[in-house]
């Protein structure tokens, strides 16, 4: 029983991390149809920037804020300089964003070297909550809380504000959104920046949990894409449920059938897509 509860908890907290990464990716996908291979790089760079801030200042809070902000600027620059010109050209987008991903990977190697690091977390977030025989790391609880807060703010914004309705209108029909006066360029840029910020936030948070190391970007990117595809492009609810599913499947798969863990992750995904090709909450 204890085994199941602690694995459940691990799966949920990994799902929470995935949601931070994939929520923005899904919105970007759904709204701009951009297949953003650079999304993993924002995660990696966010972690590294935070690492540097911690080394210099010792402040975890400042590291979170600066890591996320810096990467949002990187995202805005990439979008403005390249991606907004490539709307509708999938191949061009994939090649461009893949190119950036490789550049950022090398840049990170040059600036931070090849050693793995862990972001040191404040004392209040370390240690474990002990319930009977069970240990729940406080930091993992913190990740779940952050993800729930982010999901709540995103949901409230999307569903209950005018700007949220404009974003949904743009997901529904970008051309017609322009036709009622919505500045789709500006909104797309904001959503792109938001996605980059959340990915960086995920990277910072993950830095205190799985660490920051070369290759982390391309290691986590497939998970984020699986979440988006299974949950349905552009659906926040889909990203949330998809993240939880992937987090749990990955965790239980690795714990129960370590040699089959990719199979236990991807087989259910394939089954879902066979039944619902647009994902759980996607629209055609």
């Amino acid at each position: 029983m204890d085994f199941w509860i602690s694995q459940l908890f691990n799966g949920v907290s990994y799902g929470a991390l995935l949601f931070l990464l994939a929520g923005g990716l899904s919105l970007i996908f759904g709204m701009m149809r951009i297949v953003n291979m650079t999304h993993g790089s924002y995660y990696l760079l966010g972690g590294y920037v935070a690492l540097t801030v911690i080394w210099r200042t010792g402040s975890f809070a400042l590291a979170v804020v600066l890591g996320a902000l810096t990467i949002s600027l990187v995202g805005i620059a990439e979008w403005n300089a390249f991606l907004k010109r490539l709307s509708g050209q999938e191949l061009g987008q994939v090649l461009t964003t893949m190119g950036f991903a490789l550049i950022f990977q090398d840049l990170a190697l040059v600036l931070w070297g090849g050693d793995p690091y862990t972001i040191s977390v404040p004392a209040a977030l370390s240690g474990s909550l002990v319930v009977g025989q069970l240990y729940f790391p406080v930091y993992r609880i913190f990740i779940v809380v952050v993800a729930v807060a982010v999901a709540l703010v995103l949901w409230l914004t999307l569903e209950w504000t005018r700007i949220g309705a404009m974003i949904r209108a743009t997901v529904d029909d970008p051309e017609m959104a322009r036709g009622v006066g919505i500045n789709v360029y500006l909104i797309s840029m904001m959503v792109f920046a938001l996605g980059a910020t959340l990915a960086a936030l995920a990277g910072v948070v993950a830095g205190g949990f799985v660490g920051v190391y070369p290759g982390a970007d391309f290691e986590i990117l497939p998970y984020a894409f699986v979440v988006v595809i299974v949950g349905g492009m552009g659906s926040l609810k889909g990203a949330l449920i998809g993240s939880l599913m992937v987090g749990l499947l990955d965790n239980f798969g690795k714990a129960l059938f370590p040699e089959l863990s990719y199979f236990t992750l991807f087989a259910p995904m394939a089954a879902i897509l066979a039944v619902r090709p647009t994902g759980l909450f996607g629209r055609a």
Partner: protein
Amino acid sequence: MLEVRDIHTYYGDSHVLQGVSLSMSRGQVVGILGRNGMGKTTLIRSIIGFTSPRRGRVVFKDRDITAWPSNRAVALGLGLVPQGRRVFPSLTVMENLEVAVKADRGPWTVPRVLELFPRLRERGAHRAGKLSGGEQQMLAIARALMTNPELLLMDEPTEGLAPLLVREVGRVIQSLKAEGLSILLVEQNLPLALRVADHVHVLSRGRVVHSSAPDALWRNEEIKARYLGL
């Protein structure tokens, strides 16, 4: 207020509008007629900026808007009721009205458009995708009015509607005209178009092949037979 000067519009290599010119002045209702596939929607798309013409000019309120993004054209005072309604299906009726960018140059507000379309008020919290075709058409018109346009582009607003609803849309167009709104109306319903328009153009294969007052077209059996299939 609108001048279209010799525009050529393409989809890829296909040369759809082959030199269309027309002009209209403030307060006018101009009808665009023509059979299926003759380029009426392409003309509307060229004016609003969905598919910019490769050659020629679109001048609105003395500004050359040919290559402007649509949202800028809307900000300047164009409004669009597109073919096929294109309401935002996942938004509620209210949200469809609220996302339209309001300009404070005109009289239209949410309460005022709901007065014009009382049925939309009852449906306010419904998803627009769940409305009937007639209700979606009303919503598409209401949404365009929310931007307080000075020139409204309407692309086949009665397409696929039951006769009763066709008459209701006709009444709405009449009342907008009476308020002094300029309207460029694409319409295949000839009696309706001839009733509300001050001037009509007939399009065929991407060119204007006939322009006249509505009654002159009504009497011109040759043009009607050749270009309108009547």
